[in-house]
């Protein structure tokens, strides 16, 4: 099949953005529906791709490659393996859900919003598909701009501070990453007699790395640069403080995408690029990174307990949950890595859902302060039930997706060192503490004075809102009961990852 399906998926939202741009802004409904239609189209295509994907074999499929800047061997090269296809499907899924979830809340400048969102989707898909380091970098940066606008224009009261922090923080990391990428390509060029051909090609670079041709000192520096960029995006302790601000100020859909996909970009970068390209450095720094991950897991959970704001609480819980991902990557165990990737997906689904649910409340009350809530289980029973479900999923209840991911990370790291598992297992209690306490204060008890003051505006979830949450809940259950759906896809990438990472330790 010679259909460039990957490019089609990538650029479908772009076409959508252009289409939206062409529509006059006095028809907001038409704009919304057009945007939704294109995001749904991308989603359907990604599902088709998933169906067409051949399970089992290692390596990349559906590879497309075209010369772009031949002077430096920069190519437009995309392809998928089990990891990227999952991420792409996650992205397309959350994208249409986010767009749909924005129908109500976004009333101002709808056109710009939808364009931003569709461009954002292009960038995110591109990041997961790119097999050329330069292309990857470009998509990586493209993601930044629409998110900057989404938070900055359609965000809360402190949105400018938050969005600037987000952008500057990310830029510091990504620009250093650019230096590292260029240096890596240059090292390859030097190693190939000054020819730039293939210098940015991930697969060739990885072969180059596998043959041990990057010097140790070089690896250390390049790895640190990439790691910093990815760690900020994940975000790892202590680079996480942009996240609570960004989440708090972002509009609901922005938070969903931020938590659901953007944080995954960092983890994806670590798995796809940072470790396989610089295996020796990855091993050198694995210890400190594991310690940081453990700190992030526990620290994020502890800080979550005392958060006064719903979104801020979920943001800090993301720090904790994403700690499992980095932990799972750097213990270099197939089990833990699969757990980490599963955790990436399930965190996307669960936290995305939680933000949507908070958005539902915010729509009605224009407030997210936990202390002002209370008794919502009585007034909005359906909402409270769904919220409870997602909270339990977030707390890692067995049978739901979050449990499988975290448990696999636990088991994998326990196999490496029981100490890691012992140090992090407390999060089982901490997570339950902050989540249930939050749930109790929001949903249980009697109706707060603040809510009473709002009178009868507290209608329960609407149909649209339910539609946005339904697929997430469904996937959470399905992945909890049948994680093999994902794990089968991940076997080959996990092997490839370990093979690449194992070079420096001699297999």
């Amino acid at each position, binding site marked *: 099949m010679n259909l460039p399906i990957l490019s089609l998926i990538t650029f479908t939202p772009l076409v959508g953005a252009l289409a939206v741009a062409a529509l006059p802004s006095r028809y907001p409904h038409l704009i919304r529906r057009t945007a939704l239609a294109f995001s749904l189209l991308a989603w359907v295509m990604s599902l088709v791709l998933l169906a067409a994907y051949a399970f089992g074999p290692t390596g990349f499929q559906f590879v497309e490659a075209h010369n772009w800047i031949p002077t430096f061997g920069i190519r437009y090269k995309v392809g998928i393996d089990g990891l990227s296809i999952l991420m792409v499907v996650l992205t397309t899924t959350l994208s249409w859900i986010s767009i749909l979830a924005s129908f109500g809340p976004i009333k101002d400048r709808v056109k710009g919003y939808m364009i931003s969102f569709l461009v954002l989707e292009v960038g995110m898909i591109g990041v997961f598909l790119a097999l050329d380091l330069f292309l990857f970098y470009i998509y990586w940066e493209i993601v930044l701009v629409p998110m900057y606008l989404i938070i900055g*224009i359609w965000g809360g009261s402190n949105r400018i501070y938050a969005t600037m922090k987000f*952008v500057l923080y990310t830029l510091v990391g990504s620009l*250093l990453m*650019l230096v590292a990428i*260029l240096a890596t390509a240059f090292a390859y060029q030097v190693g190939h007699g000054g020819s730039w051909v293939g210098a940015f090609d991930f697969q060739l670079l990885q072969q180059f790395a596998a043959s041990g041709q990057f010097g140790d000192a070089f690896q250390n520096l390049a790895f640190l640069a990439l790691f910093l960029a990815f760690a900020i995006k994940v975000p790892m302790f202590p680079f996480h403080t942009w996240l609570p601000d960004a989440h708090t100020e972002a509009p609901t859909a922005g938070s969903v995408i931020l938590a659901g996909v953007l944080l995954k970009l960092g983890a994806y970068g670590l798995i796809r690029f940072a470790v396989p390209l610089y295996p020796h450095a990855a091993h050198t720094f694995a210890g400190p990174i594991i310690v940081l991950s453990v700190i992030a897991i526990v620290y994020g959970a502890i800080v979550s307990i005392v958060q006064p704001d719903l979104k801020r609480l979920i943001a800090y819980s993301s720090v904790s949950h994403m700690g499992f991902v980095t932990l799972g990557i750097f213990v270099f165990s197939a089990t833990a890595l699969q757990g980490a990737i599963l955790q990436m997906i399930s965190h996307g689904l669960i936290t995305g859902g939680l933000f949507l649910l908070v958005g539902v409340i915010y729509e009605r009350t224009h407030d997210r302060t936990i202390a002002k809530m209370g008794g919502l289980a009585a007034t909005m029973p359906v909402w409270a039930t769904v919220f409870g479900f997602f909270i339990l999923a977030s707390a890692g209840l067995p049978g739901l997706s979050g449990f499988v991911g975290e448990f696999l990370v636990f088991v994998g790291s326990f196999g490496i060192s029981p100490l890691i598992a012992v140090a992090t297992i407390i999060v089982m209690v901490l997570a339950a503490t902050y989540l249930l306490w939050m749930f109790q204060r929001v949903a249980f008890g009697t109706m707060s004075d603040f809510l009473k003051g709002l009178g009868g505006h507290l209608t329960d979830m609407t149909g649209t809102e339910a539609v946005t949450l339904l697929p997430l809940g469904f996937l959470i259950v399905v992945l909890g009961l049948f994680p093999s759906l994902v794990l089968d896809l991940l076997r080959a990438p996990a092997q490839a990852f370990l093979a690449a990472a194992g070079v420096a330790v001699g297999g």
Partner: protein
Amino acid sequence: MNWSDIGTISPVVIAVLVAAAVLVVDMVAPGRRDPVIVTALGGLGIVAVAILIQAGRSGSAFGGAYSLDNLTVFLDMLFVAIAALTIMFAADYLEPRGLPIAEFAAVLIFAVTGAMLVAGSTDLLLLFVALELMVLPGYMLAGFARHDPYSTEGAIKYFLLGSFSSAILLFGLAYVWGITGTTRVDGVAAALATVVATGKIAPGLAMGLAFMTTGVAFKMAAVPFHYWTPDAYQGSPTPVTAYLSVGPKVGAFAIALRLFVGALGPLKADWLPVVIVLAALTMTLGNLVAITQDNVKRMLAYSSIAHTGYILVGLAAYAGGEQSGLSAILFYGAAYTFMNMGAFAVVTALQRRPGVSSQIATFAGLGRRDPWLGALMALFLLSLTGIPPLAGFWAKAYVILAAIQAGGWLTVLAVLAMINAAAAAFYYLRVVVYMYMREPTGDAAPSSPGALFRTGLAITGVGTLIFGLFPALVAAAADAANVFHG
């Protein structure tokens, strides 16, 4: 002097004639705008054609004082584009202020003629004279709004410091000439090569180098010789600022290419550390101070200082042994021309009505008041920030790549440059914040600019995009131009 010499410098000759023609047209039809603009732009078009005819050829004229090579063609085209864009942006700005377009266009074209001569000169004396032809009209353009205290204040500061630095440069040139015994660039290089080969360089030569470096650094607005930039940029009529931010800057780098790369090439090991220090200081100070600015013109002035720093990294990369550093400089110059002129053009559009300040508050709500203008400004600012896939990103990437290839301290410089670029995002995006994330204040409604102006804006916008999406187009030209007669 013979006809072939005239042929070789034909673009310059034509440019002078165009300037004269503009003045003549103004005499024939005094105060009429359109004939002047038609003459000027049409003339520049002819100049461009003359340059393009020369593309790919090489040769020298006037006994080696002027050389035609790819570098000359590349830079000449750039200068002509700068001149044309400046005229497009200026017409709408000058008219409501009662300032004459004819004198403006003539002086501007004289300046650009100087810049074109700088690009092609391979003789120290010609280089100096051409440089003066480039900058002297610049002083006058800065003070072109001669009834405006700010404009004249900027002009006199620019003039005094510019003359001061010219004297310093000249002093240095005199010593280098005295020691090497020739004004021809290749002769100087040959003489210096023997000096280097015999070991230590004389203190007198070192001092001459210091004076020359200072003079050129001043023209580039490198720290600590940058002081004139913010005041001159802020005070000048905004289209002039647009011109000043790219024309003399690219010209200064043309001097650097001809003088430092060409004539002083054998001494590059000696001037490399100086350039590294200058680059580091320049980008850091430029960015740090730009962060604190509330006036967009002044902010862009400091930002242009920072960009000088980035371009200097390319020069340092060359001195560090990486020829592609020169391509990086040229690419950067071209990319910077479009995005920065575009940014200033938007400021110009806002200030078209007299009395509108360039304070950042003027931009509040621009994205809503005038979506196209806002979007373009955002495009230029993102490009200046270095966000892919826009021109500014590739410019930075080229420079960084060259620095990495050179290795050593230049890697550190590359990292510093990137940290600086991240800090720079703060002030560029701050403008975006005002445009899109704040509500408009006051009555600062933009008056929609004329067709000519819009064409200019479109050219800069499309340039910024095209350079970003298809950088190979410009990169190939820059690569071709990085080996030149010198």
